[in-house]
């Protein structure tokens, strides 16, 4: 019987899939603005071993590993420029060129390490609509607030209803003392609140302002979908990026915990999650 460490209980436990014979694995993939380093190789190889072993045990494994091609901001989360947009600016490339270039190189490096490709490789930019709906759901439940056009997680409010910090083993007081001072902090109620959706720098058009506003986020999914689709049709990735900076997959340890808590709360339960740390 496979025994595997459960970060939530902090014990090795007998692995029992929710659906007999089937396993779903979600692993946090790279943010594609630079070459993979040794710190990326380790989780990739570790989850490759898990995938290979579960497969050899006869499980049907659906292995999802994303490509973060938008929305990973400098300095962890709340302030600063999108990492890919910044790289593109420095290299005088289209952001999509940066994304494709480093995605190709990542695949090549993983193949060299004999890391098997995942069953599904979603791109963050391909799920903007779902992310808008997701942020909206959190807002509707009262666990987020809008400040200066950006949406932040209301950590204190959330912690009243759910055991925030259970995965990382840190309580809110620990998190407060550990939180770095960053630009844009004044928009937040507390330093430990984190951005769910960030107002882009230099937003001008009223339509885009509306997009970042709570009213917009309350709009029906269908409307959000139309808006996103229109953005994609009419502009390059770069232009759509500056109006829809997305912050949802941030691969630091604290954010892993945050996103997992949020995922459990919203009813989707990833039971194996992995994260590359950058």
């Amino acid at each position, binding site marked *: *019987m*496979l*025994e*595997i*460490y459960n970060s939530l209980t902090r014990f*090795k436990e007998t692995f029992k899939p929710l659906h007999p014979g089937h396993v779903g694995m979600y692993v946090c993939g790279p943010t594609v603005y*630079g*070459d*993979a*380093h*040794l*710190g*990326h*190789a*380790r989780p990739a*190889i*570790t989850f*490759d*071993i*898990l995938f*290979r*072993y579960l497969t*050899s045990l006869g499980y049907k494994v659906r292995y999802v590993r994303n490509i973060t091609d938008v929305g990973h901001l400098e300095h962890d989360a709340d302030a600063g420029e999108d990492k890919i947009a910044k790289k593109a600016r420095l290299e005088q490339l289209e952001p999509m060129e940066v994304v494709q270039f480093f995605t190709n*190189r990542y695949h090549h*490096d993983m193949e*060299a*390490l*004999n*890391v*098997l490709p995942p069953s599904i490789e979603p791109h963050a930019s391909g799920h903007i609509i779902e992310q808008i709906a997701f942020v909206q759901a959190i807002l509707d439940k009262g666990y987020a607030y809008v400040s200066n056009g950006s949406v932040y997680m209301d950590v204190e409010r959330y912690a009243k209803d759910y055991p925030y910090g259970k995965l990382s083993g840190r309580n809110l007081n620990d998190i407060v003392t550990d939180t770095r001072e960053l630009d844009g902090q004044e928009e937040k109620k507390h330093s430990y609140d984190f951005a769910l959706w960030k107002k882009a720098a230099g937003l001008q058009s009223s339509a885009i302002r509306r997009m970042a506003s709570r009213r917009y986020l309350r709009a029906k999914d269908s409307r959000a979908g139309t808006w996103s689709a229109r953005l994609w049709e009419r502009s390059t990735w770069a232009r759509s990026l500056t109006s829809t900076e997305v912050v949802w997959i941030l691969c630091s340890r604290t954010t892993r915990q945050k996103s997992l808590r949020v995922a459990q709360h919203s009813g989707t339960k990833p039971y194996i999650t992995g994260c590359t*740390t*950058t």
Partner: protein
Amino acid sequence: MITIAGKKMGKSYNNFITLRQFFAGDHPLLTKAFSPMTIRFFILMAHYRSTVDFSSEALEAAEKGFQRMTEAYARLQKITAAATSTDEVHSLVAELRQHCAEAMDDDLNTPIVISNLFDSTKAINSVADGKATISEADLKELRDVWQLYAIDILGLQLAGNQQSAISNQQSAYNGAIDLLLNIRLDAKRNKDWGTSDRIRNSLTELGFKIKDTKDGFEWSL
């Protein structure tokens, strides 16, 4: 987590070495280039929840370990079965699969799987050196366990399936040395000791290590 000089390796600390730099040996902290399989083996030599401190020396040790694995795997493909197994060989083969499975079931303990495979190299070597024998059933089991745990589960590309990575030049070179040593084998059979010794001594002088085995020869540089 991987540390470098005790500090977490990461983009935000600007102390990372990219995989491409490892593969090319292109970084001041690296004494040489390291193959992707050496990197993979290095990572699997530690349990996934432990902290690994990176150093060029540690990678060189991993490289030697991986080299031993590939050599043992190559011998395993070459050895031939006898009527029965020597006792030690049989008891080792009988338990190997179980030991590897227990290690993987114990929170993916890859270092223990590797050490079990290393233990079995002793048996492979004694059979290759003619000091022990292995039955057909045991040889099949041993090959199956290596295939499952070393190749399918640990994902190590040992010898055969690594051929494509070796350049044409390298394989032509290997072929030329094999040819010389086969000429030497023929010379020995014809009791042409002059030719046989000349080939052996010249290659040894050039730095080759030549080993006579029951089934022919092995060489390394």
